[in-house]
């Protein structure tokens, strides 16, 4: 493995780790405050118990998210010093605001976790809302920094020099809105289905059914709404990409030759050498329509671009198929859930719960796949059309060791956190409700 590959893998690995914790840290507080609100309203002790156990989850995930995030903020510089030297001042604005949002979140969390019976009930509940809102705000801000890498703006560039820097324009780059919207929905979908799946499992096992049903309902309501909106927002993203990053779009669709009325390929095995996609399902003219809203529009193929700006086509294509496949599935299940509210008999059926157990990891798989589309699809650029990834990497040799260290460390952490969560649920089931 050469240095560049090791650095790329390390970045990918640590980001894919962080994003799971970040999403949960971003979304769980919302579940928590809903449960908390219901406790304040109904004084049903089940809700208090649920709130308190979710709050422990939030604390554990928040810290794991925070330390992996701290590592990331160093890592951007440690791995890509050339990138940060030029990009730092330009995209510093979202990052400094993000710093502020994190701070607010940490302060509010301090109040929330330690404030039971110490501060007024209303204010205590309100600090929970602040935790949630500032979490989402920080998520949106980081994604906007990522949007800038896809759609660089807010500076002039000539002969390797960045001048005329306008941080506000960089923050509000052309990609920020579609990406932030899609990402926020994704966080709710992924976390919601995961949490709902865990509680569905407990219901299937007949443990504390009343409590877990309440928990399930809170989580899945958020998830279902987000999952239904997700494909709409994904369509917006795709239309955006078609204009801004046609190479990425072509790679996502494994679309090699420029055509009018381009067909959409679903699935299929890509052979990059022969530029052939076998075993696919072909929907005529659908790609032109999806990308431009016109069945006969011309869609640029990969062959229109020089070979050295092609990303890895198979990876991007497969990842995109995974995301869209799961997205469609989750949308359908989201609709089914709302139907189930009218048909209570479904809730007695084990198959209903089994469905949600199987779906538990799907949201996160789609989310990681989506990031692979965005990030691998941007290659070979670290800043689209401006700076190549290979020119940004650290000159320090031996990055492989650093990569292995992170793999070991984070794998252990992932196992530890999973184990802790299992114990959390176990103790929830063992204890009696007051």
């Amino acid at each position, binding site marked *: 493995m050469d240095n560049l590959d090791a650095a790329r893998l390390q970045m990918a690995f640590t980001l894919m780790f962080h994003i799971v914790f970040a999403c949960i840290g971003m979304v769980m507080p919302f579940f928590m405050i809903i449960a908390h609100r219901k406790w304040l309203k109904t004084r049903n002790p089940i809700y208090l118990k649920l709130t308190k156990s979710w709050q422990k989850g939030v604390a*554990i995930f928040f*810290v794991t998210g925070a330390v992996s995030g701290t590592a990331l903020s160093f890592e951007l510089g440690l791995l890509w010093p050339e990138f940060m030297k030029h990009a730092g*001042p330009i995209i510093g604005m979202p990052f*400094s605001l993000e710093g502020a949002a*994190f*701070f607010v979140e940490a302060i509010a969390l*301090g109040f929330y976790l330690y404030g039971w019976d110490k501060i007024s009930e209303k204010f205590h509940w309100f600090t929970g809302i602040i935790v949630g809102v500032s979490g989402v705000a920080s998520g949106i801000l980081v994604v906007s920094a990522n949007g800038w890498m896809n759609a660089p703006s807010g500076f002039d560039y000539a002969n390797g020099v960045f001048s005329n*820097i306008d941080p506000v324009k960089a923050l509000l780059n052309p990609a920020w809105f579609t990406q932030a919207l899609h990402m926020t929905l994704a966080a709710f979908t992924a976390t919601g289905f995961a949490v709902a799946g865990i509680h569905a499992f407990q219901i299937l096992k007949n443990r504390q059914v009343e409590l877990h049903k309440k928990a399930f309902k809170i989580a899945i309501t958020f998830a279902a709404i987000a999952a239904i909106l997700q494909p709409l927002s994904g369509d917006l993203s795709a239309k955006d990409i078609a204009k801004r990053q046609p190479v990425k779009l072509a790679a996502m669709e494994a679309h090699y030759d420029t055509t009018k009325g381009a067909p959409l390929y679903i699935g299929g095995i890509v052979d990059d050498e022969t530029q052939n996609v076998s075993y696919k399902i072909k929907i005529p003219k659908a790609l032109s329509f999806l990308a431009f809203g016109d069945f006969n529009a011309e869609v640029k193929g990969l062959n229109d671009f020089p070979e050295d700006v092609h990303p890895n086509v198979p990876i991007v294509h497969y990842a995109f198929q995974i995301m869209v496949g799961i997205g469609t599935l989750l949308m359908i299940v989201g609709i089914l859930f709302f139907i189930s509210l009218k048909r209570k008999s479904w809730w007695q059926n084990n198959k209903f719960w089994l469905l949600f157990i199987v779906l538990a990891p799907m949201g996160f798989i789609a989310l990681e796949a989506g990031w692979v589309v965005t990030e691998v699809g941007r290659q070979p650029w670290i800043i689209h059309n401006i700076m190549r990834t290979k020119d940004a990497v*650290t000159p320090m040799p031996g990055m492989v060791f650093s990569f292995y260290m992170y793999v070991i460390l984070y794998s252990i952490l992932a196992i530890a956190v999973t184990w802790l969560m299992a114990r959390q649920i176990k103790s*929830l089931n063992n204890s009696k409700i007051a």
Partner: protein
Amino acid sequence: MIYVVLSFLMISLLLYVLLAGADFGAGIIELFSSRKGRDTTKKTIYRVIGPVWEANHIWIIIIVVILWVGFPEFYNVITVYLHIPLTLVLLGITLRGVSFVFRHYDAFKDKSQILYDWMFRLSSLITPIFLGMTFGSMISGEIILNPDETDTFYSIFIGPWLNWFSIFVGLFFASLCTFLASVLLIGESNKNEHQRYVLKARIANITVIVMGFLVLAFGYFNNLKFITNFIKSPYAIVLVGLSALLIFPLTHSIKKATRIKSRFLAGVQVVLILLAAIITHYPNLLITSDGTVNLVETASTPKVIQVLGISLIVGGAVILPGLFHLMKSFKMIKILEKL
């Protein structure tokens, strides 16, 4: 505007050293306590530091963000040449953070606690040492800015931080943290445990002085530019002198157990020492083998600095009152009780 940014940078650095320092130090005290002492220390740490623990550590993120936005060239040099110690600091921060949460939030209290405890204590010691070594390397003059063929991996990426001077600075910083923590804990312990922390505070204080002396002496005899500047600077001498004088009222107030005064004095003492270092430092925050990196000259363009400054002011206006309120609500700053 650049001075607004620089002040935020300095304040964040001071707060990080004081707050996170005390926090690291608490772990170090736990490490160097008897078995029974460890248990009480663990409980006290949780009670005192728990609510603000997260907020304490965000200062370093603020520092990093200010550096990369406002002073990209400076940040670039550190991240390239001090890659290894910074990675080790991160490793320490990660292990420490998770073990702190694991040991307090695990649903069952069983044997696994032993593992979390040791992880917490050891990383509490290692992190400030490497952090201090990183600070030391920035001024040791060992970083080679423009390496040529004769330089090896060792001389470029390891030599700059793995040297006696940096190690002394690392140990100095760790003992400083311990000192801060012991003063903090004195105020929080009951009569019986009192004596224990008073003793710890003394030992830590002596270690700080010995280590500080070692750093100065070593730098002086090896003719390190930073140290010779330091010794020649009248400001630095006055500040260090003042902080040395504070030892007397401090010892007295520790004995008397007036916790507000002790904390205040200890804090002031550390701030004075840091200010002395910063003043000698400024504006050449990096001293390398082939020159210095001037913080002001390598700053970003005025427009960027302006936006950064405004973000910091707005952010500060939102955050500081909240933080203050948090510390007050949970009785972190005892001085506030009187207000």
